[in-house]
C-alpha cells in the first residue's frame, strides 16, 4: 500500500526513515529536542530501539541522538510507504 502515515518516533522500526512533522510537548521539551537538531522538516532515521520501552536512537544529519522513550513517543514523523 502506498501512502503517507504519521507515526511517533518510538513506533518506527529500525532502519526506517521519516520527516519530523511535529514535536508534541511543552516549550521546554521542544527547545531541548530542537537544540539537538531534531525539528520539523528534518529527516531522521531510526538506528535502534531498546527492549521494554528503552531509549530510541535516531540519526539526524551526521549524528546519532538517543531519546528517552517517553519523549520519542511525542515526536511525530511522516513516513512514506
Amino acid at each position, binding site marked *: 500500500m502506498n501512502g503517507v502515515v504519521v507515526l511517533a518516533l518510538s513506533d518506527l522500526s529500525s532502519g526506517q526513515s521519516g520527516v519530523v512533522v511535529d514535536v508534541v510537548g511543552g516549550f521546554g521539551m521542544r527547545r531541548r529536542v530542537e*537544540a539537538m*537538531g531534531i525539528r520539523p522538516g528534518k529527516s531522521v532515521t531510526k*538506528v*535502534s530501539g531498546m*527492549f521494554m520501552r528503552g531509549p530510541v536512537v535516531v540519526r539526524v544529519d551526521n549524528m546519532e541522538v538517543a531519546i*528517552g522513550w517517553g*519523549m520519542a513517543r511525542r515526536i511525530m514523523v511522516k513516513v512514506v510507504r
Partner: protein
Amino acid sequence: MGYGEENHGEGGAVRRVVAKAVPWSRRRSPSEEKKMVLLMGNPNVGKSAVFSRLSGVHVIASNYPGTTVGYTEGYMKLGDEKVKVIDVPGAYTLEPTCKAEEVAVEMMTKGDLVINVVDATNLERNLYLTTQLIEAGVPVVVALNIWDETKHKGIAIDVRKLEEMLGIPVVPTVAVTGEGMARLVHRLGEARSVGTQRRTSSQRWAEVGRIVENVQLIRHRHHTVLDRLAEASIAPVSGMPIALGVLFGCFQLVRFLGEGLIEYVIDPLFNALYLPLMTRLSGLLGAEPVLHKILIGELIKGEIDWSQSMGALTTGLYVPFGMVLPYVFSFYLVLSLLEDFGYLPRLAVLFDTVMHRIGLHGYAIVPMLLGFGCNVPGILATRILESRRERFITATLISIGIPCAALQAMIFGLVGKRGVQWVVIVYLTLFVAWLSLGRILNLLVKGFSPALLMEIPPYRMVSLRLIAKKVSMRIRTFLYEAIPIVVFGVFVINILYIVKVFDVLASLSSPVVIHVLGLPKEAVVPIVLGFLRKDVALGFLSPLDLTPKQLVIGATVLAMFFPCIATFVVFIRELGWSSMLKAAGIMVIVSIGFGGLQNLILR
C-alpha cells in the same frame, strides 16, 4: 571544590549588563584583571582537546559557584600577554535547557573573546550556537574542529565562504593532533563583535540552513570499521553482550593494574622509605601511650602493620596512598579510555531501561561504575546528573549496593576461601538490595528526573596525551579530597576509640548483631569499625572462626551498612547533612534487613 581561584567577583553583575556588544578592548581597562578567553561549543566537539592544546600545565578544575557544574581553567600566551582560558561547559544553545547551559550563558557574558569550537562533521547543528554567539555581540573566532574526519565522511566545506557568510574568522583544526592550533591563536586578534539583530529560533535555523547549503557539499560516505562497531554496540541484541564483555574486561584490567602497582611500586616504597621513619617515631613515642595510639596505632606482633595498626600516620596514610590510590589510578585510566573513545553514552543507552526502573536515566550508570573503584569518586560523579532527586538516589545506592575495589578484594580473598558460591551469594544479595531499594526510592523520593536525551558521538581514536592529562587532573582532585579526610577521620576515630565511644556503640548494637544477624559477640566491634574501613573491618572478622554463612552475613552487612568515613564526608559535602542522615537511616535498615534475611534463608 573550592581550591581553585575564582575570578567571578562582584563586578560580574554589572559587567553582565554592559557586556552587550562592546568589543573586548573597551570592555575593561587593561590593568583591571586578566583577559579571559572562553572555549564554547556543543558537547563532544573536542573542546577539551582544544583547551589542552592552548593552556599550559597549570590547570584548575572548579565548580561554578552555587552549582554542581564543573569547568576547567588555565592560562595561555597571547602576544606578550598572559590570558586566562576557560573551558566552558558544553552547550547546544544559549537559550538554556539545562544547568550546564545556564552556566555557559552566564560565563559568556564575562568573557572577552570566545573561541567557538565547531564539529566540522556536524556543521548545521553546531552553527546554531555560532549564530547565537554572534548575535550576543561577543567577539568570536570559530575553530572548525575534527577537520580530519570530514574527508572520511565525504564532507567538503568551503572555509573561505563560511568565513564570509558568518563575518568572523574560521580556522580548520584537529585539536587531537594540534593541527591548525597555531593558526587559530594567530587569528584570535581578528575577532571582533559583529553584533547582528536578535532573531527567533526559526529565523536562526533558516539562516543556518542557508549557510550550510552554500558552504557544504556531502558526497558518498563509506562505512569505516569504527562505524560498524558503533552500530553493533548500540543494537540491543549485540550491544548487551558487548557491554558485559567490555565491563568485565575493564574490571579485570583495573584489578590487574591496581594489584601490580601495589605489589611492585607502592608497598616497596612504603617499606623501604617510610617504615624506618615510623619505626623510629614509634620508639620515640613509646612513653606516650595516648599519642602513640593516635599517631602510630597498635603494634601488631611488635611491628607496624600498615593496614591494621590504625594510626593516623600509619594506616591513615597507607589507606589512601597504598590501598585506594592504585585502584583509583587504574580505574580512572580505564574509564578515561572508555570516555574518550566514546563508549560511555552507548552504555548509558543500553542501561537506560534498567535505570529507568529505579528512577534514574541511563547516564547514572557512570557514577555507579565509578563507585566500584572507590565510592568517593562515584558520589562526586553524581554531579553529572541534573536533578537533586537523581543525585540522592544514585549516591544512596552507591553507598549501599556498590562495594569498592578494596572491599571486593577482601570479599574475594576471605569469603572466596570458603567457596565461590558464597561470594556469589554476597554479590547477589547486594544486587537485589540495590535494585529493590532503587525501586522503592523511585516511589518515595519526590522531585523529577528529566528524560534521557543525548547525543551519541561516533567512536574516535583516543589521544594518549589527553588521557594522561585527564587522569593526572582526576588523581590530583582525588588526593586533595580524600587524603585529608581519611587522615583526619582515622585521627578522630582513634580519639573516639580511646574515650570508649565504640564500646558504647558496640554494647548498644550487640543484641541486633547477635540475635538478628546471628553473629558472635566478638563480631560487633569489627562491624562498628566498618565505618572507618570496610575492607579492614572484614579482615578483623577472619580470625573469629565464623561459619561460611556468618562470614557471608558479615561481609554483606559491612558492604551495605554505613559508608566508610571518606564516603560519608563526601556524601555530606555533596548532598548535605539531612540527605546524609536520611541515607544513613536507610542504610542501617537495609543492611539489618538483608543480613537478617540471609540469616533466615541460608543454612
